[in-house]
């Protein structure tokens, strides 16, 4: 796919872009269409950021890392449109940063400990080996204010960190950027807004009847 630039050729594009603008000089600093093609096309070939089963956790135990992976894919699962959190490298992201920040490591290791302990006390098994319905039950008690219980209060801070970091990791990955439909971060010869987008918003706004 000739329009789909990989990372290396994208960098080349900007190197060429910078040079050509300088060389063409004043009066012709408009980008040619070939140079101005949107680099977001690079995203059409979404690469997995996950290093897969070969990834060796830097901070978490194997068991905790598998728990994290399961949790991450529950927060952002694969759906018809796109892949899920672990494919976007979310568990690696959390493990990597926890290996470099003790405060973060404490939040997550503490959280995994709390979760398994709660699951043991409630269902007689840790989170990973609990039944899917039991896993959902505890997460629902952590995620929704209306379901809060005193027994799950100890896990809420962990849950907030987990959800925020999984969301961060997912939407800062090629898969997440594609899923959300961000089309920028490229070079364009001119700026314009598609009429259909303006019409879409105006039609739904209080200004629908103003010309």
């Amino acid at each position, binding site marked *: 796919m000739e329009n789909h630039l990989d990372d290396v050729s994208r960098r080349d594009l900007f190197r060429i872009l910078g040079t050509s603008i300088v060389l063409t000089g*004043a009066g012709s600093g408009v*980008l040619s269409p070939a140079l101005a093609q949107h680099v977001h096309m690079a995203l059409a070939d979404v690469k997995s950021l996950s290093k897969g089963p070969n990834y060796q956790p830097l901070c978490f135990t194997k068991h905790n890392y598998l728990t994290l992976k399961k949790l991450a894919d529950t927060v952002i*699962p694969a759906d018809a449109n796109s892949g899920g959190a672990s494919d976007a490298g979310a568990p690696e992201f959390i493990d990597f940063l926890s290996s470099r920040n003790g405060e973060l490591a404490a939040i997550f290791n503490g959280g995994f400990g709390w979760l398994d302990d709660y699951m043991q006390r409630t269902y007689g098994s840790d989170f990973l080996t609990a039944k899917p319905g039991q896993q959902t039950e505890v997460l629902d008690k952590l*995620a929704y204010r209306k379901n809060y219980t005193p027994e799950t209060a100890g896990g809420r801070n962990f849950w907030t960190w987990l959800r*925020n970091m999984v969301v961060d990791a997912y939407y*800062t*990955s090629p898969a997440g950027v594609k899923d959300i439909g961000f089309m920028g971060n490229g070079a364009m010869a001119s*700026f314009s807004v598609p009429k259909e987008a303006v019409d879409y918003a105006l039609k739904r706004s209080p*200004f629908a009847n103003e010309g």
Partner: protein
Amino acid sequence: MLQVQRSPEVHDVVVIGSGAGGGTTVKVLTDMGINVTLIEAGPMLNPAKDFKEHMWPWEVDHRGVGPNAENYFGKDIYPFGYFLAPNGYWNIPGEPFTVAEGQDFKWFRSRIMGGRTNHYGRITLRFADYDFKPYQFDGLGYDWPITYNDMAPYYDKAEEFIGVTGTLEGLRSAPDGKFLPPVPPRVHETLVMHAGKKLNIPVIPSRMAMLTKPLNGRAACHYCGQCGRGCQTASAFTSSQAMIFPAMKTGHLNIITNAMARELLVDDKGRVKAVSYVDKATRTEKTIRCRTVVVAASACESARLLLNSKSTKFPGGLGNSSGQVGRNLTDTVGHAVSGIVPALEGLPRHNCDGIGGMHVYTPWWELDKKNKDFPRGYHIEIGGGFGMPQIGSFRGVAANAEGYGTKLKDDIRRYYGSTVSFAGRGEMIPNEHSFCEIDPVQVDQWGIPVLKFHFRWSEHEVNMVKHMHKTFSDLISAMGGRVTSRELPERAASAVSVGGEIIHEAGTVRMGDDPKTSVLNKWSQAHEVDNLFVADAAPFNGNPDKNVTLTIVANAWRAAEHLAGEMKKGNL
């Protein structure tokens, strides 16, 4: 044993600081063939290496949180995010400042070639006629010793050199300039324009220092919206790329980097004869002799340097017999309100990057309104659109949506691009409680006495913020949206930005006709020291609701031409 190195050479002009004011001085003087030596407290800038212009977040393992997750824990290492241009800090290790007990002030410093122009917002507004004569206008503050008409030719020169977008509107509160073509409004900005029409609030094309056409050898913008990260093609204005780098090719510019000015030394007559600085790399004390010095280290840093330059003739600091150095400290009044606009939910995806920042804005519109409970006014900056997803981009949506799974994904898709924000940037009236002085005890890692800040908003600013909050909420409602920011608290003063937070400090070495009440004359030249000029926002007599950079450039340009004229006449 400490050895102070003295160079025998006498430099014609030494400029201290390389931001908007220093860069302009360097450009104007070297263009005239005058030899300039530039002292910068930070390193040289290398855009190819230092600017992360088009980087995707996944190109670094930490995705932009910082290698040790710093930004998750409110560490001050990347105040505006990892990907921004080298931007400096509110807290520089080893270079502290102090604040009077019970008060709040933040002092942002950029130690790099180009200073804060490498990352700034590039909003480029002329001060209006009444901004130069505020006391005549409403009896508050101090009049400048010059008028709008004195500054206008320099605004022309500055705009024609920098390149500023805009349209001719004929508004007294937002004087027209020499503009490049504007950029069309984004979808949310079109809605804001409709809302403004309904509420009688003008919304006009923004005035920004990005090139919508090639100019002075710099390429036209390529509309990636990443101006804040630094622009490889220099299509967004920076002092470093547009002024300093070209001046380096003239053969008239000598640059000393990593040089922290300690003191200006005077001769028997009280004229500046040399600049003493710390060479940070070697931690050695150095002195260079000069005929003329232009201090452009940023408003507070320039005041600090003058206050620290004590001599028998000037025991209270260089050129400070008036006692005005450090006084009249102002920053911009900031307050913002955000909301979700349902008409934008599910908006068809498109590239809306454009130029970095808003394409339309609101200049002050109630200039002639009587019975307001605050003086002067503010402008409104508009935010929204499909920004590049970053760390934290969807935290608000996730918190509101609660839950997890496919529903969370759907919510994030739906709400992406439906947030709008309005940020007010208003005028603070100088007051006697807001100033900086030398801390009697504390020194920085170079042994240079540090600044102690005193800062208080008055009722004027608090009332203005109430007006902002209501206006922004009304605009969001008019768009059919709902406000997501917290309501204005009972104690409205707590909703005003912290002093220094908007990074528009000004007024600390003010100009005037009377040497008893001002430090500088109308040429930004010290009344008492004729070979000392100040060329940042320190000479300003007020801090109008128009960001300071354009006026820093215009005023520095004016001062530099005067300096060159005086040199020619043999007066310097």
